[in-house]
């Protein structure tokens, strides 16, 4: 089953000069376990695309299927359930729940999805180098550490699809690379599909497929 | 020095008297209330003979009345003193009623003057309830514990022998007054004219008292002797509209003569007086006969009070200058005025009492 299907998606935002079309009949398919990189100029609509894929925002037309489920046929609760069960989201910042410890944050989504596996979570934490930070709270972590926790939390729930929106955008290049390396490695290890928004051609090169968003459509992709 | 003791709501009382009674110092009003028509009140008539002892008592149908006693005294050391005891009656209506309904209001003033100090005190009372009043026979005038009580023998005039007491916050006195001469009617057989327009009062005096007794002063009791003078006067309209006050003297000459004189200060000065021989024969002095000339003023509480006078009676070559025992003899009471003993010299010499109102 395809992890994500975007079929002729259009999306426009209202603006002072009338509606601005951000996505214009865009289509994309992501097979299970495959890693896709999405690049594009700032403001080209990458985040919008990702939000639509996650069911956080509705598209104006077109279909979105996550793990075979049509999002447009779902109500808010259904889409939320899908996010819990099948998706992993990683944003640029504010991914963590500030009132929970690192350990609780790591386990949180897996427990929500009812797939909590303590051994696996511990394993991920070890791999992400978080073993010593488990008792800390988010604001006691550096940006890179926080993003690693977000990745761990996302993967611990064994999502079918990971959607990551410039997860290292806030980090310096070195740290960003380490974190992303880990993410790629671990998603592959967990057999999850990945759609990664990034500005870095170097990182994009490490993905199986690369897409460039321009004028509301994808270019390239192999 | 004066001491206002037991100060009551004096303003209320003062008002009662301010409207009706003479010695009020309200120059703005100029004693105007006194000159107004006395509606319902009796008005003195010339030719009415005085009746004793009845006229020693109160005349409620007249608006105002007083029993006014002064004494010039000396102690064994030759120190001079002056004493005043006065009971005023003021009627709100020309009648007497029982109890609180009585429209009669009483006011007592007591003064005691030494060369250095001047004491004064006052009392107020409603008539009708027994707190103050006068009875003609037996003669008693009183307000609270102050009294002037007759001890005259049978057949003698009630005023011939008086026991007098008053008490203030820091002084009191008990004096015995014995008359050495007869009662003397003032003016025209007791009808005393007060203005050219004809305002008048009934007025008689007992100017021949010898006095003895005790003064209680803050430094202790002092035995004193001297001479005394009693004035009785009642009226309903003693002053004219324009009259602001008066200057009044009673004089005892060393040769045994007595003299009363006053000037009423209005647009025109109106004077009157009586020359009294040692045997009590009065000679009324018409308007203008006596001349009052202030010689020296004393500043008292912002007022300029003429405390030294030249008094002249040209017809008899009388010209004297008075000197007060204490120029600060101000009766600082609800109704305030100057009242104190004096000595005089010049063509004649002797002692006397000076009263000045309306300053």
């Amino acid at each position, binding site marked *: 089953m395809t992890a994500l299907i975007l079929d002729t998606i259009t999306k426009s935002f209202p603006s002072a000069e009338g509606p601005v079309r951000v996505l214009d009949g865009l289509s994309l398919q992501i097979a299970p376990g495959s890693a896709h990189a999405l690049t594009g100029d700032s403001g080209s609509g990458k985040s919008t695309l990702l*939000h639509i894929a996650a069911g956080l925002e509705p598209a104006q037309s077109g279909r979105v299927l996550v793990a075979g489920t049509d999002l447009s046929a779902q109500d808010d609760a259904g889409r939320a359930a899908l996010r819990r069960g099948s998706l992993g989201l990683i944003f640029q910042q504010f991914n963590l729940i500030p009132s*929970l410890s690192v350990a609780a944050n790591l386990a949180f989504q897996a427990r929500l999805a009812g797939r909590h596996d303590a051994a696996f979570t511990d394993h991920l934490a070890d791999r992400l180098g978080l073993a010593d930070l488990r008792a800390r709270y988010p*604001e006691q972590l550096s940006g890179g550490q926080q993003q690693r926790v977000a990745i761990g939390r996302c993967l611990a729930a064994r999502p079918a699809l990971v959607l990551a929106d410039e997860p290292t955008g806030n980090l310096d290049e070195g740290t960003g690379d380490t974190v992303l390396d880990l993410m790629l490695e671990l998603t592959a290890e967990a057999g999850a599909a990945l759609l990664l928004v990034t500005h870095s051609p170097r990182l994009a090169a490490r993905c199986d497929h690369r897409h460039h968003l321009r004028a509301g459509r994808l270019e390239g992709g192999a | 020095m004066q001491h206002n003791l037991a100060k009551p*709501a004096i303003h*209320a009382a003062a*008002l009662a008297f301010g409207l009706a009674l003479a010695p009020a110092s309200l120059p703005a009003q100029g004693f105007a209330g006194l000159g107004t028509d006395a509606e319902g009140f009796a008005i003195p008539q010339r030719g009415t003979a005085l009746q004793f002892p009845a006229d020693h008592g109160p005349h409620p149908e007249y608006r105002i009345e007083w029993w006014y006693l002064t004494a010039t005294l000396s102690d064994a050391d030759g120190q001079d003193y002056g004493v005043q005891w006065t009971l005023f009656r003021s009627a709100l209506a020309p009648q007497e009623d029982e*109890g609180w309904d009585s429209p009669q209001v009483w006011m007592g003033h007591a003064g005691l003057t030494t060369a250095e100090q001047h004491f004064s005190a006052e009392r107020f009372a409603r008539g009708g*309830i027994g707190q103050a009043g006068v009875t003609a026979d037996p003669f008693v005038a009183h307000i609270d*514990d102050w009294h002037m009580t007759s001890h005259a023998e049978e057949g003698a005039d009630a005023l011939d022998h008086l026991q007098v007491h008053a008490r203030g*916050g820091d002084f009191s006195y008990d004096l015995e007054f014995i008359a050495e001469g007869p009662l003397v009617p003032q003016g025209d057989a007791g009808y005393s004219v007060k203005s050219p327009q004809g305002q008048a009062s009934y007025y008689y005096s007992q100017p021949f008292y010898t006095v003895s007794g005790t003064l209680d002063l803050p430094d202790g009791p002092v035995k004193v002797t001297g001479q005394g003078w009693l004035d009785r006067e009642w009226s309903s309209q003693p002053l004219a509209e324009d009259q602001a006050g008066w200057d009044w003297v009673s004089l005892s000459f060393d040769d045994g003569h007595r003299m009363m004189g006053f000037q009423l200060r209005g647009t025109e000065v109106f004077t009157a007086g009586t020359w009294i021989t040692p045997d009590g024969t009065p000679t009324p002095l018409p308007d203008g006969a006596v001349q009052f000339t202030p010689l020296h003023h004393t500043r008292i509480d912002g007022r300029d009070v003429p405390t030294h006078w030249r008094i002249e009676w040209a017809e008899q070559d009388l010209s004297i200058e008075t000197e007060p025992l204490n120029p600060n003899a101000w009766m600082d009471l609800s109704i305030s005025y100057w009242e104190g003993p004096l000595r005089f010299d010049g063509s004649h010499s002797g002692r006397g009492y000076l009263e000045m109102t309306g300053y």
Partner: protein
Amino acid sequence: MTRIALTALMSHWVRNWLQLAMLLAGLALATALWSGVQALNSEARSAYATAESLLAEGTAERLDHPSGQIAQDRYITLRRAGWQVSPVVEGRHTLGSARVTLVGIEPLTAPQGAGPALAAQDLNAFFAGRAFAHPQTITEIGAHDLDLHPSDAVPVGTVLLDIGRAQEMLDTEALSYLHLLQTQPAGMRPLDTLAPDLRRVPAGEGAELGGLTDSFHLNLTAFGLLAFAVGLFIVHSSVGLAFEQRRAMFRTLRALGLPLRTLTACLAAEMLVFALIAGVVGLVLGHLLASFLMPDVALTLRGLYGAPVPGVLQFNPIWAASGLAMTLGGAALAGAQALWRLWHLPILAPAQPRAWARASARGMRLQGGVALALAVLAIALTLGGDGLLTGFGLLAAALLAAALAVPLVLAALLRLAQRGARGPVAEWFWADSRQNMPRLSLALMALMLALAANIGVGTMVASFRATFIDWLDLRLAAELNVMPASAQEAAALHPYLSDRADAVLPMMRVDATLKGQPGQIYAMKDHASFRDNWPLIDPVPDAWDRLAAGEGVLVNEQLYRRAGLQSGADTLDLPGVGALPVLGAYADYGNPLAQAVLTLPQFQAAYPDAPVRQFAIRTSDAAGLTASLQEEFGLSSAQITDQAHARDLSMSIFERTFVITRALNVLTLSVAALALFAALVTLAGMRLAQLAPLWALGLTARRLAGLELARALVLGALTMVLALPVGLMLAQVLLSVINVQAFGWRLPLQVFPADWARLALWAMLAVLAAASLPALQLARQGPADLLRVFSRDR
């Protein structure tokens, strides 16, 4: 630069106008409650001052007789002995449609006072019958045939007139008492020998309104302060949160080169402006509140103490100024902490919520320490203290300790709940509640205080009410009460009544100073009506028999407790009787005066002149007897009171007494609800960043809103639970310390769980109302708003 900084600071309020509204509302309400209460107090106090300055400006001693009457010739005797005394006649009289106190004075001898000054305006007219009364009283009187003139110098309910007129109208030839002028000449016979039977009452004691009503006003003031404190919690919380919200802005402004000094000054100026605006609004509201409550306060004071207080409020600039000062002070207090933190804030302090929470963890420890210290102080005061002020000190310490402890206890409870939680959402729920505690704690403290005050005062009033009703039913055993108009009428009524009623109990009393307190001595006929219906406190054995035998006195509880008497051990000095053993005490609620009871024969022997003021009559045919009394003696209906009427009267006075208390209670609770609302609204904006990840993780906005609502309710419920013991403690202190000190009686604490349930319901509704708006906003929040969290730097 300052202008730019101010513009930036103000922009926050433009965007968060609701928060600004809350801040202003909190400060305005605090001011309103405080100043409202102060307005009531000052109005009443000025009324007492009017009453006291009417006759003697409170400086003249009085001479009175235990019988309440002095023959007029005694006055003359004293005057003629040189004593400067002035007579006064006082009495109740029906004038037009009002029952008034006639005060007859003699203006010529009266000591200086407002009354004689009025009389002096026109003595002639005054002697002729001119009378003066407060405009309100003239309105109450309605039609009359007096020469009645209005004057604010006369207390409400009093008619001032000449003594002769007063005697006439009161149908008496006697005087009520004499004023002894302050300065007296020397050398008179002493009063002890001149008038040994006359009692010399020191200046001020005759007009003891100030003293008697002190406790009432202290109560009001305490309530005003409590309300003010609750209001300050709102302000403090709003200011604190606004500071938190604008921290990034401060950072930026300072990074841009704005000196810290200027920034601080700007913030202080901002606070000052807010305080002034809110203060003025608060004063207006306070005046409205006070005007609204004034009639009830006046009725209470008149009913309870006979204090002549007008039911209309006058504006008083001093009151306004002090109210405004209080507001500014309160705002300064609330703002000081924020400014202090700003002053000590490193430019790049972390803007993370947990950091704040952790910083406040230190604060929490300090707070715990203070709470503990206050609790210890409260205990010390309980053990060692005495007096009304100590009582209030104890209350203040205990309440503050409890309030400060609230966040600590709640945090502990939440930690416990978190530990017991199953499931990630539940765990998050508790963890998140804990984390947000510091921001809500002030509002919760305010809520706790308001709830505790509500429970405490409610319990006190209800306990008092229950006790009072039982007591009243026993006290009002007589079916009829008849008030004879004069001694003659009393003499005529007595045999007539004795023939027709089951029992006639004459009521006589004289005024006396008992153990240095103003009081009264009553006569009591030995009768089952008393033996059966008057439960005694600490009675000696056979107390009633011994009383009947004239072997002692009973005293009221007020006297018993205030003078620290002990039945059987102590004696009481009664003028004209001597020292008698105290046999026991009886409850005497609602009476400010000390009281002692003698058996009737003994009383009559000691005070033969005392008139019968009332006959209490036991009869099975009250209606018939009433009718025949009216017919044969021409008694007015005002002279006869039946049992039900008396009971209604007493109950209505009782209810009135607590109208103000209840009103203030409700207002305080409303203010607390507002505090919570303000805090929740402010928090809502900041919470978006905390909630967005959960939403992204698959919790719907609706569910999150539900959880937010639930959190508020849980915190509210926990606060309510905490408030219960605090409230009961408060009630206990009110009943056994404050009441004893203020009124002289101790009451048993009774619990009324139904009242608590009602209060809990109201509290939950208030919390629900406060939490609804933010929750609703969250539920309706579009994804765009939530999404923005992830792409926007805070």
